[in-house]
């Protein structure tokens, strides 16, 4: 049965999320020995803010978490998914890995190939999940990277289902697990190719004000597009003027299921192509919203077995969870044009 991989920012959320149906957790662990030297400026994982509670920061928490894992048998993997580490960070990193292994955690999500190589060279026999931040999009990459004994490949967010299927079937590597994103935080850019700063004091680059405009060499080849964009700008500025200042703080916690990125109607298809784990994004999110997310995804997975037909399953999901009005941002929209380019 497909497993639901759930974010964990605080150990007090572990039990309620297990009850909601989580099958596995991922969390960030950034202890003081890292923070005092590197702060969040040189991040240990991809949750790079300091003021938001995304990461666990004490070894005590991890030891308590270990007791919970032993009791409930729902495992936790730790994110070491920064894009790269520098040489001087390695001793601290290895110390953290050792402490985690001693505490009973041996599943790590890693994006930096150099760090994976280092761990293997030093004889660390941990389970490595290759992060979506490593941007592995094709079967040849899986083949290349299998030399590092990767236990699970996490497909990057922007991977069409057909491509996942081809990777799983045609890479030639056997006995692997595959994880796909299913909910929340559908970013404008590809995470592994995003080199922008993510810190409290700056807006995320994808939220920066931006306007579509014409280049100087423009020849008016897309007049219809240009007209529609112009009309949309007028309409949008009218909507902005009407709604400015009208959202309140309490609105921030009432965001509907799937609004920030959704792929749940494709769960059956993902299951059938060999995806074993579904990832819900949401470290730092409120517990209530995560419980809702986990429960819904769990229910939808359980429902998938009832349907033979993908279309009927999709329709059922859209009707039951979205009243036939899908959230705007879809993880798995169909590809534009044929997948095979005419050359």
């Amino acid at each position: 049965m497909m497993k639901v991989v759930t974010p964990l920012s605080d150990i007090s959320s572990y039990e309620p999320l297990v009850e909601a149906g989580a099958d596995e957790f991922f969390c960030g662990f950034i202890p003081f020995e890292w923070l005092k030297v590197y702060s969040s400026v040189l991040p240990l994982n991809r949750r790079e803010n300091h003021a938001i509670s995304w990461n666990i920061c004490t070894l005590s928490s991890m030891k308590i978490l270990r007791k919970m894992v032993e009791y409930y048998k729902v495992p936790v993997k730790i994110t070491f998914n920064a894009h790269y580490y520098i040489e001087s960070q390695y001793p601290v990193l290895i110390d953290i890995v050792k402490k985690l292994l001693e505490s009973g955690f041996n599943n790590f999500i890693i994006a930096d190939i150099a760090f994976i190589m280092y761990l293997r060279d030093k004889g660390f026999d941990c389970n490595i999940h290759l992060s979506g931040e490593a941007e592995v999009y094709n079967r040849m990459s899986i083949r290349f990277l299998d030399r590092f004994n990767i236990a699970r490949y996490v497909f990057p967010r922007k991977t069409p289902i057909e491509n996942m299927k081809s990777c799983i079937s045609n890479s030639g590597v056997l006995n692997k697990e595959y994880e796909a994103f299913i909910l929340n935080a559908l970013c404008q850019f590809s995470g592994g190719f995003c080199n922008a700063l993510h810190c409290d004091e700056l807006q995320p680059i994808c939220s920066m004000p931006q306007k579509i405009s014409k280049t100087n060499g423009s020849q008016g080849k897309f007049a219809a597009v240009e007209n529609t964009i112009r009309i949309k700008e007028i309409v949008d500025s009218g909507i902005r003027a009407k709604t400015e200042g009208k959202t309140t703080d309490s609105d921030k916690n009432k965001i509907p299921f799937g609004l920030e990125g959704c792929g749940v109607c494709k769960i059956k298809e993902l299951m059938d192509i060999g995806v074993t784990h579904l990832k819900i994004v949401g470290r730092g999110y409120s517990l209530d919203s995560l419980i809702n997310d986990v429960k819904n995804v769990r229910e939808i997975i359980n429902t998938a077995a009832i349907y033979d037909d993908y279309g009927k399953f999709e329709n059922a999901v859209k009707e039951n969870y979205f009243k036939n009005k899908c959230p705007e941002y879809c993880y798995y929209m169909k590809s534009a044009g044929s997948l095979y380019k005419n050359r």
Partner: protein
Amino acid sequence: MRFIRNKISPALILGFIGSGDIIILEMQENEFVFESVEQIETEFELNVFIFDYREHGYVNFVFNNCSVTEYRAKKFSHEYKAKAGNIISGTASDFRMSLKHITEVSRMLLNGIERDGEKSEVIEWLSGYLNIYPFGKDTEFPEDYTGQILKCINSNQTINAYRRYRDIMSKVELAFSLSNNDQYRQSLECGFDIVTREGLKRMELVEHGIFSKPFSRIYIGNEFCHNLFPTRPVFGRLLEKAFDQGLNVTVMYSYMVDNSVNEIKEMLSYADNLCKANDTTIELCINDWGVMEIIKENCTRITPVLGRLLNKRKKDSRIDYMWGGQKYKDKFAENNLNTEFFKKFLNDMGIYRFEFESHKMLNKIPEGRHSLHFPFYQQNTSVYCPLFAECTNFNRIKQELVMKCPQYCTEFYFKYPGHIHIMGRGNTIMGIEGSLLSDFRILEQYVKDGVDRLVFTAI
């Protein structure tokens, strides 16, 4: 987003009893609540570290004679309420102020610093210590595409500077990058010389000392967008033309989506055969490990070089406004290419040259001979093009994989606030960095460190 907004981040306040850390749940001047994995003694010394935004580091306070006032056994841990003892390191008033500061600053940050505006008391206080991003300037957009670029690369130079650049360039190979269909077409119609000259003219760089020597290498392709690689016939003709003119060639390819695998295999095999027929070799920028897997199986005349998408580092034009950014400036210059073992791994695979970019932070160049691209650098790339999404779905986040692209990027781009010197070209945010053109000492240092090739991209 649904973030927890009513809680101080655990990264901002940490506590230790002896050598073991504890989980601080609540902290006030005289009393605190914490959780521990093991039971503790009823009296103890507490070490507290509180983050100070002004110094971007932790301030330490030590309390001795702390005593437990309440205890609750939890299922997996122990929760204590304790009275804080005497403060023996730091002062009580500093401790009070530290708690007050992290509460106020983190509340402001969690609610969105850009909303508070410059008149907020917290921001006013912080601005005495830190560089606060000028959110007000985000409403000012550049007039036009070319104008914005020219402003960023303002390259007026003295005669002395020209000579210095010319002297430095005597040791450096100069390459021109062709990275879109217009450039490919113009190169075939008019020749590389015309395209490079026109490119330099548009950028007002004809007289610059860097270009005091001819281009001896052509980069063909695109490292960031799979739809901007030339078609097979065009690619073949460009290669042949370059070979005829005695130009060295580096091919650029981006990430490889799975449905392109067979096509890329064929393309590389074709290029390899063309090289054999011309008794030459070409380089290939590797931006996807899968492409490396193909080359090692099939190609003998293609030399891999490490492409920019695999040379991972922080590149953000707003770095001056990052709190703590200056403190860690030297460390930002490094990445995993500066580790000997990873460099050896790459060398063992035949990758000796790495492609770098001139951007707002300096690069620490590892040993060896490497390339430096300018004046544009890649900041963000999306495999699903946001410009295509904007032009077809009129929403840049409603994205999908595009394989038949009408190339909206020839006509449109995303404008960003002018003061941050970036622009959205197709699926990539490019930064524009002119320092290499305006300060010869930067180039001089890079050449000393091992850069032996400059790669120029024109508009």
